[in-house]
């Protein structure tokens, strides 16, 4: 009879060794460069992949166990939220527009992150980063799926959710987040992991998830809070991977420093431009505010990012160059973005509104140097015009930045009354930019960015109308045709919140929930 001998349990470090390094082998009948064809061409030099260490030492067995627990918790809450008609407990129906923006702008990026990390995990010869990238790839797929599941509950009741995946590919403002991620996954594996793992996850992701999820909690949206926190519980690991990547690459060879610094400069700026949508959400779209964009920037970028870059100074890394521009813009970003969306809301899949008096007081207090001087007068004027029946919806298409694809509405550093325009010539064509940083990114890799799919250009070229449309027909309405191609229903999904079907339905259902009618 066999005797059961109690084996000593492996320690964390031994287990990590066994479940990563010991799963690897050295090929004998294929060349390493044939198996890993993408690790050389970016110029990053790695001498010893075994120097890679995951500080959490998470192995696949523990990963499945904890992820399963997170999923059980999450789905219990999502079910309870749906069963209890939780959507009627949000502060007011304007809030739901933040969820629309998240589903259309952010969730599809989670799916792209899943693909990106699967790709780089395959591309790296080291078993340590391969395992870490595999876990992150699975996390990102989980985030995409749980977000779609959780938000599908809103799609049963409200407009602006029904075709999110198509919108992500087609709608003008969504080309900003889409092109950001397309830019990252079409880079080499090292650039991708610095772009997403470090610049986005470590430096910027707190600004996306923490205010958004905290905002959901503040505004009574338990469903969003649940998937947000569930996703965020993976983010700490992603951030740690991002930081380890930078340290690992820099410790391997001094020649890696200038390449990595350029990527950090580029991707901090690219990521920051995408966060314009978050800034606007925090300051204008949450009926109950948590903190201002400016405060969040100061805590999560200036304070935490400052500590991070002081720590990385030992490798020769400095603060990204764009930090100064961003410091200037923090008083203006959210206001300029919301003003633009208020003007262009005939072509959006969510509603906009003017901030009420309480909200303007909050904005004045949070932005004492800019709100009353530059932005309150605009809202007052627009309110006056709307009251006279002159609500103006801008239907002239704006010029877009070739790099970040944001319409050119940002102002000159140092002068918030003057729009910032930059341009450059390349092979006989003129290209336009929102800033010096976007121009510089283009000039370093023009062959990549000349290929950008710019929504405004595409509309003018006639590529964004339903099949069979005749733009030369009498009375042709280009906006109407574009909305048809988007599958945004005019008068229902777009325009002002005031008077919208969402507003009417929410009011009627909430009344039913509190009275016996």
């Amino acid at each position, binding site marked *: 009879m066999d005797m059961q001998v109690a084996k000593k349990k492996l*320690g*964390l*470090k031994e287990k990590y060794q066994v479940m990563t390094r010991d799963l690897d082998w050295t090929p004998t009948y294929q060349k390493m460069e044939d198996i890993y064809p993408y690790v050389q061409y970016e110029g990053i030099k790695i001498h010893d992949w075994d120097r890679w260490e995951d*500080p*959490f*030492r*998470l192995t696949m067995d*523990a990963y499945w166990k*904890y992820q399963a*627990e*997170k999923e059980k*918790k999450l789905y219990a809450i999502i079910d309870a939220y749906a069963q209890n008609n939780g959507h009627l407990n949000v502060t007011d129906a304007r809030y739901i527009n933040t969820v629309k923006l998240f589903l259309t702008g952010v969730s599809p990026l989670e799916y792209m992150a899943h693909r990106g990390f699967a790709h780089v995990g395959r591309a790296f010869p080291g078993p340590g980063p391969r395992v870490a990238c595999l876990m992150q790839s699975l996390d990102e797929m989980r985030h995409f799926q749980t977000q779609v599941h959780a938000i599908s509950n809103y799609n049963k009741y409200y407009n602006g959710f029904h075709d999110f995946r198509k919108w992500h590919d087609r709608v003008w403002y969504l080309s900003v987040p889409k092109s950001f991620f397309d830019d990252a996954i079409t880079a080499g594996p090292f650039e991708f992991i610095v772009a997403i793992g470090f610049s986005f996850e470590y430096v910027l992701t*707190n600004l996306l*998830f*923490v205010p958004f*999820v*905290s905002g959901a*909690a*503040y505004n009574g949206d338990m469903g969003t*809070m649940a998937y947000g*926190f569930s996703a*965020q*519980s*993976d*983010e*700490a*690991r992603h*951030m*740690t991977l991002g*930081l380890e990547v930078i340290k690992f690459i820099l410790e391997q060879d001094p020649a890696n420093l200038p390449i990595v610094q350029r990527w950090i400069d580029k991707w901090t700026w690219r990521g920051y431009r995408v966060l314009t949508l978050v800034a606007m959400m925090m300051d204008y779209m949450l009926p109950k505010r*948590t903190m201002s964009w400016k405060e969040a920037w100061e805590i999560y970028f200036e*304070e*935490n990012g*400052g*500590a*991070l870059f*002081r*720590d990385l*100074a*030992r490798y020769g890394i400095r603060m990204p160059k764009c930090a100064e521009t961003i410091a200037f813009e923090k008083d203006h970003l959210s206001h300029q973005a919301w003003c633009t969306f208020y003007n262009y809301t005939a072509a959006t899949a969510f509603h906009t509104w003017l901030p009420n008096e309480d909200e303007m007081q909050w904005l004045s207090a949070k932005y004492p140097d800019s709100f009353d001087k530059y932005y309150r007068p605009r809202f007052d004027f627009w309110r006056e015009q709307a009251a006279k029946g002159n609500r103006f919806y801008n239907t002239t298409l704006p010029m877009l930045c070739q790099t970040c694809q944001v319409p050119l509405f940002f102002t000159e550093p140092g002068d918030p009354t003057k729009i910032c325009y930059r341009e450059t010539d390349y092979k006989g064509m003129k290209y336009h930019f929102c800033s010096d940083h976007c121009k510089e990114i283009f000039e370093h890799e023009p062959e990549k960015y000349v290929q950008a799919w710019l929504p405004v250009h595409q509309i003018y070229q006639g590529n964004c109308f339903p099949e069979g449309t005749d733009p030369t027909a009498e009375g042709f309405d280009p906006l109407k045709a574009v909305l048809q191609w988007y599958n945004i229903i005019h008068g229902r999904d777009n325009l002002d919140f005031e008077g919208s079907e969402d507003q009417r339905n929410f009011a009627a259902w909430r009344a039913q929930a509190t009275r016996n009618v």
Partner: protein
Amino acid sequence: MSTVFIALQTNEETRPIIEAIVEDNPHARVNEAPAMVKIDADGRLVVKRSSIEERLGRDFDLQELHINLISLSGNIEEDEDQMILAWKN
């Protein structure tokens, strides 16, 4: 000195963890936000398994932290007994 932080969801599972962190790091500052707690500390923050186990009255694996973790900053050093967050400056 640079600040490190750890942010956790506010719930029954994290209550003893937060208490343990506060006791083991007298220099830490606790910031409560809706549904979350962010603990800031100058330079260094330690999370000790034994302190959490004392409060929980059961064995605790430090990797269980991941279930309720929201965010953190600093370089991480973790073994079976403790997790340290620190900046090297």
